Structures are given as structure tokens and as C-alpha cells.
């Protein structure tokens, strides 16, 4: 397993990141990890080995849906997309995250 100077993800945030990434478009697993890395400008590098268990768990919870489609490489890939209940879950988790990060931010500044 590779270890970079990049910080590990906070526990529990991977689900949130996946849901957020899928909000606008459906993507396959590799594209999800690429996109998170790009948008965070390499600030977040998710453990690719943990990505797929998380995807499968979310699929079981019904928050994302999967279907096979032809990818940019010309071979079959499994594309994930957000479901209606996934959208609701994303809203809940995002607001929780906002509350949490503001609170932590305040403590870090003022304590």
C-alpha cells in the first residue's frame, strides 16, 4: 500500500465524497477516485482498495445504483449513479459535515 504525504481520509468521509462525486453524473470506480483527487487538487487521495467495498456497501444501502456500460477504453465497466434516496442521504450527510467542520474550525481557531 502506498503512503504519501497526503493525509488519510477522516473516517466516515469516504461515503460522503463518493455520493457528492456522483451527484452530477454517473461514473465508474476509477473515475470516482480520479475525480476526487483532481478536484481536491491532489489534497485527497483515497485508498483505492477501500473504494470498492464502500461502493458495494452504498449499493446495498440503495443510495447508489450500478449498471454495466461501455467505457472510454472500449470495454465494459460498472457505472454508479446516485438514486433518489442517495440524494436525500447526501443532503443529510453534507449538512452534518458542514456543522462538524464549522464547529471544529471554531475550536481550532479559538480554543
Amino acid at each position, binding site marked *: 500500500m502506498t503512503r504519501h504525504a497526503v493525509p488519510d481520509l477522516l473516517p466516515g468521509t469516504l461515503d460522503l465524497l463518493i455520493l457528492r462525486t456522483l451527484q452530477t453524473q454517473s461514473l465508474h*470506480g476509477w473515475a470516482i477516485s480520479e475525480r476526487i483527487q483532481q478536484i481536491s487538487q491532489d489534497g485527497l487521495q483515497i*485508498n483505492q482498495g477501500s473504494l*470498492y467495498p*464502500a461502493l458495494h456497501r452504498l*449499493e*446495498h444501502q440503495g443510495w447508489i445504483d450500478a449498471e454495466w456500460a461501455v467505457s472510454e477504453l472500449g470495454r465494459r465497466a*460498472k457505472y454508479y449513479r446516485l438514486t433518489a434516496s442517495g440524494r436525500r442521504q447526501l443532503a443529510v450527510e453534507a449538512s452534518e459535515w458542514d456543522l462538524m467542520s464549522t464547529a471544529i474550525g471554531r475550536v481550532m481557531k479559538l480554543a
Partner: protein
Amino acid sequence: MILRDLFLRIRALVAPHRVERELDEELAFHIERETQKHVTAGLSPVDARTRALARFGPVPLAADRCRDARGTGFVDGLVRDILYAFRTFRRAPLAALTIVATVALGLGLVAVVFTVYSMFFLRVDAVRSPGELFAVELERWAGADADEDGPFTRPDYDAMRRETSVFTDALAMLPMNVTRIGGRPTVATLVTGNFFHVLGVQAALGRPLLPEDDEPGAGRPVIVLSDAGWRKLFRGDRAVIGRRMVVNGAPYEIVGVMPDGFRGLGVTPPDYWAPLALAEQFRDDAAGRADEIAVEVIGRLKPGLSPEAAAAALSVWASGRAEFKTPVGRPIQVSLTPRQGTLSSDGFALVFSPLFFAFGLILTIGCANVANLLLARGVSRQREIGIRLSLGASRRRLIRQLLTESLLLSLVAAACGLVIARLFLEGVLYATITTLPPEMAQFVNLFNLAAPAPDWRMLVFVAAGAVVSTVLFGLAPALQATRLDLVPAMHGDVMRNVHPRRARHALIAVQVGASALLLICAAIFLRGAVAAATKDPGVRTSDTLRVSIDTETWRAAVLKTLRAHPLVAVVAASSRGSTRGVVETSLGEGGAETPSRVPVDQMAVSSEYFNVLGLDLVSGRGFTPTERTAEAGVVIVSESIARRLWTNGSGVAQVVRLEAPPSASPGGPSLPSRTLTVIGIVRDPGSGSSSPGTVGGVYLPTGPESPGTYLYLRVRGNPEQARLALLEEGLKGLDPGFGIMTLRAGAGMQTYMLQLAFWLTVVLGGLALVLTVSGLFSVLSYLVEQQAKEIGVRMALGATTRNVAGLVLSQSIRPVGIGLAAGGGLAAAVAIVLMATPAASEIGDLDVLDPVAYAASALVIATACLIAVSVPTLRAARIDPIATLRND
């Protein structure tokens, strides 16, 4: 999205290879895409792949964690639980065996009751679309009794088929025709030619009856055997088709055999079916009047038509039919009731609830025993459970594990229970039929009773029973065993002071109470049976036979034969049963100022009746042979009536009025009231012989020639031998439908029923007691073992043997006492409730609050418990304090 989750799980279970392949493909795609990215950035393919793999981490690990997410973990966990359970059983096979045996016994007994219940009320006959079949019944007037429903005759049936269109087709049948074939009583159902076609049943051998066999007035002498009849009469000989068989003296050809499982819409199958057109040959009373016999009509409702709409349409048709004579202006109601080869359960359910209850008690007691055993084992498994808990297993997971173990044992027990149920049922059937009085046995044999083969209903019932008993015996111990203080448990320090005492005491109390209830019932039945057997029947039974004549046309011939028979000394006659009436003394006679009225039972008897039945005349005279109708104006009254009406007790030569019962049914024959002279006073025929609400009997004269009377015979020698002799020589071939029984056997019937009830409850009560006592024994032995250290310390500190014995005894006296009180109280409460219901009159002479029965069962239980308790108590008293303390 539980559905989505379920779908994915099921998919993973049913198509594991496909799901695996997709997982591999998904992960492989990722590696390939990552490699592609590095190649685009300028790396060599080999380096690119290496880097991609390194970035991803171990692929098998990721795949494994994906599988975990898949949620087949439940099934995997179940498999692990089951394997673990089997290891546990192997470690303690005796415990597993005890649990299985106990629960199997309980489940088996409950399954017996369910089998019988299912046989009567649930087991739909094997016909096509049974839900469409309805029996058609006429109700002549609203509120009429069932007996008063109008007959539906064959011409009515033909007209209904012609003139109405609510049924796709309808059939008519005439069940319960008793015939003799080769000397054996057999029972036939006469059916219309379309019977088998309407029901949609094919013959197993040969052909079914056809419409051509059943042309009215020209029925063919052909019969179709049921599977039961085929086996009974021909031992399942396949070459039976085409053979001739003599029924009631006429030859019939066997054309077919119906399949096993087809019962002809009855609870049990008849022996054979014959064309309804031949009804006159089966029913002597129908000679020349075949069109007047009431038949059962069953129709197959047209699809889409509701029974209510069909009944309404049929009511309109029936009201317009001239042949249904009705009181003016009363429309005829036709009702449709489902007819699927079962009885309608209302009313009978009442009979079954106490049976379910009694048999269920055994299951409850068994479960209590097992629960106790598991509670005890839970303590000894504390270390194992403690280690698993501290290794991170959740409590829920452990409870699931323990319940899985219990459920596995229950399911094995359920399978054994099915076998036990079958053996028990066959045993009871065999025992009942072989011990039945011969008259009853002959009758019962007609029903082709057989223990039904287990069907899906049985399986569902027993499986559900297994689940319920798992909850009953497994839940509390599982909760108790996992409620642990982790730290000492991890140290391996088994908490000896964890005695789930309250639960254990409650279980013992329940067991003792249930045993008490069953044993009290057994004792009451036994006392009732003994009382009935020793009770003076009040009439002479030692050499008396009773003959009933079904076919009046044969009466003269039967009488002639009987009178001429060397074994018959005297022939007497009486009406069948008695009717209510009121006797009123004439005003001013016998010194009475006002007429006295008493309700009475009135019977018609012949002049020889009092002699044959040994009812002595107290004063006056009996009937003379010339007084043989009520027109003679004479009456004989019983002693109790005479005492009530005339102060000096002698009423001979008094004149009374005999009135018809005040509440005679509107349709019934109304008897005119008569003025009669009392010519004699006769002894009362024993206590309990008059029906409730009347004072005694009054007797009007009749003669043996009068239709509808029973004949009573005084015979020479043994009555049973005389009965057989009369059957064999005298009356053979005269009247196929007549019955002859010894009065002794008739009186024995009540005793027999009570004995049956006694044996049933005593077997159940005995089982309950054995289970209770063994439970008590094992629990106390276990407790003594657990408390050995404590007892040792007490003894070392100076406690005497007596103190120690007291300590152990005190642990069982309270629950046993509570259980006895509860069981006795419950029995008494049920008895009191029962006495307050209309069912009280059915109980007859049974003393449901018999103190002797209560005391005896309490004594038996207390003694048994004392014996069970004494062994562990002695063991405790013999504990050597030094040895126990050194041991630890």
C-alpha cells in the same frame, strides 16, 4: 431501500458465480484504466501496471471486503452458527438428546390433536376446484330446526338442474347406506351418474360411474369401490374389475376403483358408490317411493357467481316450484354452504380446545424442563460465552447463536414428533377399536377410520410448533446466559452466584400446576367411571336384550321369529325414549283442594315391560295384554309421582289428566290431553333416569306390534350369546337394518366413555408428572452441585445436616406448593365455569368438584416431588466440608 438490498443478497446467493465474475471484472477494469493513465503519461506498459497495482493495494483483500459488503454474511453466519451448534451437540450429546426427546414428545402430542382436527375440519377432499362446491339446502320456514328442513328429492334435483343456471353442474347423493357384503357390514353412498364427472375425479382402476349407469328407473347394477373399500374387501387385488359381488342378495358388477385420497366429499370414504337410481334396493323403506327419498344436492358454482347471488336465484326458483309445498305466503329460503369434504367447525371447535389445551400442557412442561436445563448449561458455558464476548462478538450475535442451537434441536424434535404423532394415533385407534363394546365397534368400523398420512398442513403446523417451542424454551436462557460481567468471566471465574432463581421457580411452579390439572381431571374421570360401573342401572340388565327395528314392514316377521325362538322367554315393547307431559289431579278427588300439577316423562310400554325390565309394581296392577293403546284410558305412574300427588302415597284408582307438553314444536304432532285412571304404581327405575325438570315417569299402554317401538327380550342364559345366536340363526336375512344389543352393553357405554377419558388424561398426566419430577430432580441436583462450596462453608461453620437439608428443601417447597395451588385452583375454576354453562347437563353424573380426586392427585404429586427432591437433599447432607473446601 430494503428491497434493493434483498435483491442484491438473493442475487449473490442464487448466482454466486456471476456476481464473482462481475466483481473480478470491475476490479480488473480499474487496474487496466490506471495502467492506461500511466502509459499515457509516458511509462512503459510493464512499469505502468506495476505502479497501478501498487497504488491499488492487494486486490484479493479489496475483493474480500467487497464480499463482506455484499451482505451474504447473514447466510455465512448462519452456516457458521449451525456448524458451531453441531460441535456443541457433539461435546454434550446427552443434553442435546434430552432436549430433542422432550420437545419431540410434546410436539408429537400436540400434532396428534392437530391431525384429528385437520382430518375433520381442514383436510379438503381431493377433487377439482373444491372451493366451487356448495351444498344446496332448503329452509321451509325461517327459524325452523335443522330436522325440519325440507327434503330435496331426486325429481327436485332433476328440476333444479333443468330449470336453473347458477351451477355448471350439480350432483345428488345419498350417503350412509349400510349393507352386508360377505357377512361384513359395509357402507355405500348412492350417487347420480355425473358424480365423478362433476367432482373431476378419475378412477384409479377401471372406470367411474357414468350417467348411463344411473338412468332413473333403469339403473345398472354396477358399483365403484373406494380405495379403503377395495383394500378392506379385496385386499387391494388389482384383478377386481369385472368381478361380481352380492349386495343385499342382488349381484353387482365392480367397474372401478377410485384413487386413494378421494373421499367422496366425506370426512372418511364410504366402501363403495352405486347409482342413485338403485335407491330402492338399498333402502327398504323406499320401496316404490324412490322419488320421495331426501338426497343431498351439491352444485359446482359457475365461476364469477357469488354464493349469495346463487342462493337468491335458487330461492326464487324454489319458491315458484309447486312441488315444494309451503305454508301460504312463506317464500322458501335456499342456502348454499361450502362442501369440501370437511365438517363446518363451529361448535366442534369447543370440543377441540380442551384437547389442544391438555396436549399443549405436556409441550409446555417439556419446554419448561428444557429451559431449566439450558439455564443450568448457560451457567456452565459462562467461560465460553465470556471469551466470545470479550473477543468482540456482540451480544445480539451470541443470542442468535444460542437460539440457532435451540431451533436446530427443535426442528429435529419436530421431525421425531411427526413419527411420534403417527405412532400415538395408530395406537389410540387400535386400542379404541379393540376395546370398544362390539356393538359400537361394528358401527365405528363403518367409518373406515384411518390415521391420515402427514400432509403439508401437518408439516407447517409442526414447524410452527418448533419455532414457538424454541422461543418458549430458548429465549430466556439465551438472554440470561449472555448477561455477563465480562472481567471475571474472562478470568475464567465462573460466577457461581448467578442463579436465575426466579425464572427457575416460576418454571417449576408451571410444571407442577400443569401436572396437577391433568391428574385432577384423570382422577375425576376415574371416579366417574367407577361410579358409573358400580351404579345400579335401576332396571334388570342381566338377561335383557333390546331390539330396534328399522324397517317396519319386517316387524311382524321379526316378532314371529323372536317369539318362536327357544332362547327368548318374554317379548316386551316400549316407545323409543320419552316425551314431556304434565299430569294434573282432578279437582276434589283424593282429598286435594286444588289440582296438583307435575311435569312428567311419558312413555308407552307393553304389558310385559315391567316384568322384563324388573320394575316391580308397588301397588295396583300392570297392563293386561288387551290394554295396548292409550285409548284404554289407563295409566301406571312411578312411585315418585304418586308420592308427590297423593299425600298417602297411594294413587291407585285415582283419575288424572295427562296434558301434552306446553312447548310442543309447531310442526310436531300434538297429543291430545286425556283423562286417565291410575291402575298401578311402579318402582322408579333408579336415580338419574328421569330427565331434568320432571318428577318421574308415567306409562301408557302399547303393544309390540305398534310401529316405532323397541322390543325388549328376556332371554335364557348369557345375553351376549343369545344376541349372537339370534343374529346368526333367527334373524339373518330378515331385516338388514335392525339392531340388537344387550342392555348391559348399553349401560356399559357411559362407563366406557369415561374410562377412555380417564386413560387419556392419566397417560397425559403421568407424562406430565414424569417430566416435572425429572425436571425438579435435575435442577435440584445441579443446584446442589453448584452450591457445594457454600454448603461446605456452612457446614464448616457449624451448620448441621438438618440445616443443610432444610436449605435444599426450601428451594423446592415454595414453587411446588404454588404450582399445586395454582393447578388445583385452575381445575376448580374451570369446573365451576363448566357447571354454569349449558354443557353441565352433558357432564351427567360426573362430580367435577370431587374433593377426593383433588386430594388424591395433590398427594400423588407431592409424593413424587418429595422423592425427586430427596436424592439431591441427601447428597447435600453428605457433603464433606473438608473435601469441598480443599477441592477449590
